[in-house]
């Protein structure tokens, strides 16, 4: 038999990011099986070599050196999340490897590495593009909102998203009446929501992680937060378990997303992939539907695989060249990378929760609960505004 092609990476299987990391791993294994069923790459079977980084950046350099020096992998892809992607960069750069990356926000702004390719559809100016839609939607409404409150968790992604939001708000001429951050380990969010309410903002932008997203939504409901648009950068509202628990409290929230089962987003292969994912995810304690990250985890390997097949080589120079100029067809739609390795055009969706029923998981499997409002190209419905008055 042929020597397998080894693809190496580090992944968070324990620790803070493990929820997403394990989902990603399932998706990547589905891709491996799909490819191997079709005869592998360049006629060679594909093998994944990975280690758990325990969501600890300190582990990452060691893992990638091991992958390269001991396991002698042919290709590498990144771990999940900015904090765990960045520590691998110097090692990858020194070896001049192609580095498909999974959800790192603006990592390449620091490194300017021309073989870095980011699968997250945040766009050429990731931090700003992220919330562009949220504010664009707001400014279309009548009467025009005038004030905004920005609140974010003290952690990498949320702060970057909030920084982008600040820029967008300024560009839109909104007055920022509240702009604070909170530690992710906060237990009770009602005091924060009350302080926000005291400034009476038209819009509330929230940059948050799963536990605080839940806390914020619950507190907003309990306090009866009166605002016209609420959401924007809340991680966690994309996950089925949290959606089920929050239920009707979600209605009206406008939040970013990357893929939802709306008719406008039926890319080729995504349904089949999700069906396999649902099967594989059973009993693994990960998101049962996997709408958010897994398709992208599948896609970044798809891109790599397609590049290998197209160039018929494992030469990183050739691969990089191909990846820069080609538009790829993946389960997350057409992917084209820009100069800095980000998507050439942003496709951060803004979706609104609609008509959510209590205590029902299945409702989120299909369309109608998360309406795509932005970008226009993928729009599946109209905004309900204001959120709560």
């Amino acid at each position, binding site marked *: 038999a042929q020597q397998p092609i080894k693809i190496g990476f580090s992944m968070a299987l*324990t620790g803070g990011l493990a929820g997403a990391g394990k989902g990603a791993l399932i998706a990547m294994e589905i891709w491996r099986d799909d490819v191997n069923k079709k005869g592998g790459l360049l006629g060679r079977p594909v093998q994944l070599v990975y280690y758990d980084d325990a969501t600890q950046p300190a582990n990452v350099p060691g893992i990638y050196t091991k992958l390269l020096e*001991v396991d002698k992998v042919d290709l590498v892809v990144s771990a999940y999340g900015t904090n765990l992607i*960045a520590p691998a960069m110097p090692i990858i750069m020194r070896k001049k490897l192609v580095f498909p990356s999974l959800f790192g926000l603006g990592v390449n702004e620091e490194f300017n590495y021309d073989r870095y390719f980011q699968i997250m559809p945040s766009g050429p100016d990731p931090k700003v593009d992220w919330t562009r839609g949220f504010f664009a939607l707001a400014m279309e409404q009548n009467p025009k909102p005038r004030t905004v409150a920005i609140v974010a968790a*003290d952690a990498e992604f949320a702060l970057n998203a909030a920084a982008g939001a600040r820029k967008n708000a300024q560009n839109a001429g909104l007055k920022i009446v509240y702009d604070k951050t909170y530690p992710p380990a906060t237990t009770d969010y009602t005091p924060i929501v009350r302080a926000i309410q005291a400034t009476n903002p038209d819009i509330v932008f929230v940059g948050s992680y799963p536990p605080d997203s839940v806390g914020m939504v619950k507190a907003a409901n309990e306090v009866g937060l009166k605002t016209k648009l609420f959401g924007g950068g809340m991680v966690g509202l994309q996950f089925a378990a949290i959606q089920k628990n929050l239920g009707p409290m979600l209605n009206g929230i406008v939040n970013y997303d990357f893929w939802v089962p709306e008719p406008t987003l039926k890319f080729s292969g995504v349904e089949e992939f999700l069906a396999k994912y649902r099967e594989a995810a059973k009993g693994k304690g990960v998101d049962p539907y996997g709408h958010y990250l897994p398709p992208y985890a599948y896609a970044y390997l798809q891109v790599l695989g397609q590049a290998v097949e197209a160039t018929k080589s494992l030469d990183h120079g050739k691969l990089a060249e191909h990846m820069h100029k080609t538009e790829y067809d993946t389960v997350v739609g057409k992917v084209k990378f820009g100069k800095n390795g980000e998507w050439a055009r942003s496709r951060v969706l803004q979706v609104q929760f609609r008509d959510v029923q209590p205590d029902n998981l299945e409702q989120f499997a299909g369309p109608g609960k998360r309406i795509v409002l932005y970008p226009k190209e993928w729009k599946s419905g109209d905004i309900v505004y204001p959120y709560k008055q």
Partner: protein
Amino acid sequence: MSKISPFWVSAAVVLAAGLAFTEIVENQYYFTAIYLILQGLIMAVAWNILGGFTGYVNFGSAAFFAVGAYTAIALDKALGLPLPLLIVAAAAICGLIGLGVGYLTLRLKGVYFAIATLAMAIVLETFITNWSYVGGARGAYILTPDKHLWFDSYSEMLFMLMLVLAVVSVAISRKLNFSRLGRGLAAIRDDEVAAECAGVPTLRLKLVSTTIMGAMMGVAGAPYPFFVTYVDPLSAFNLFVAVNAIAMPMIGGTAHWIGPVIGALLVGSMQEIVKVNISSELNILIVGVMLVLFISLAPQGIVGLVQKHFLKRKA
């Protein structure tokens, strides 16, 4: 001429072996793995100076480590100082914080002191989280320079640097252990009032030991940004750093300078081996089981176990 002690001979051998290692071994993986073990070793040795010799438990080790790392980040960004100077600066600043912690011992004993150090760590973490110059909660990127002296790679240089720092730390700890100062510290650990009344300047000694501990931990943290290239408060104020700093001396034995060294080498290398060989959540499980087993089988640490064995044989 006085005889050269076996300790210094072995120290020289270790350093020479380290140098030879960088020459012979091509596989960069070993350098990163050993770097982490040595980092743990310095932290453990430092913790033990206060925790083992003096009897004051520091729960805030991660804060010293992180402040060391952030000192390096800030000064690298502001002045672009070379690494050795950054290390010296980190030692100075963390030494000062250690001195401050030392003053806590004036009134706070036992667990009250331990919790105060924990509180101090959280306060410091909040400050760094809110200090945007070094990236705040967003974290800071450090681009490692291309220069690495005569070494083949930057990680080889970091490895050698860490080895030197580790040997120096162990030497300091050993010196403390067997000196008049060390006996003074032991007296403090046993009974502070009795020590004072026997003429031991307890405050001064405690200040010396907290300062050395702080400085040493800062030294362990200073090269870290160059090792990972991206640091955020969450990963710098890391629970694992604090756990290892405590667990390694406990497992090795706290009363003797060699204890933390043995503990760090044992636990550290086990962790590295498990990390890359058992690639799943099981690795943390194994680390957990290992901690429980080691410490249950040898509650006085490995040194304690060996001593007991010898005592039995002698008797």
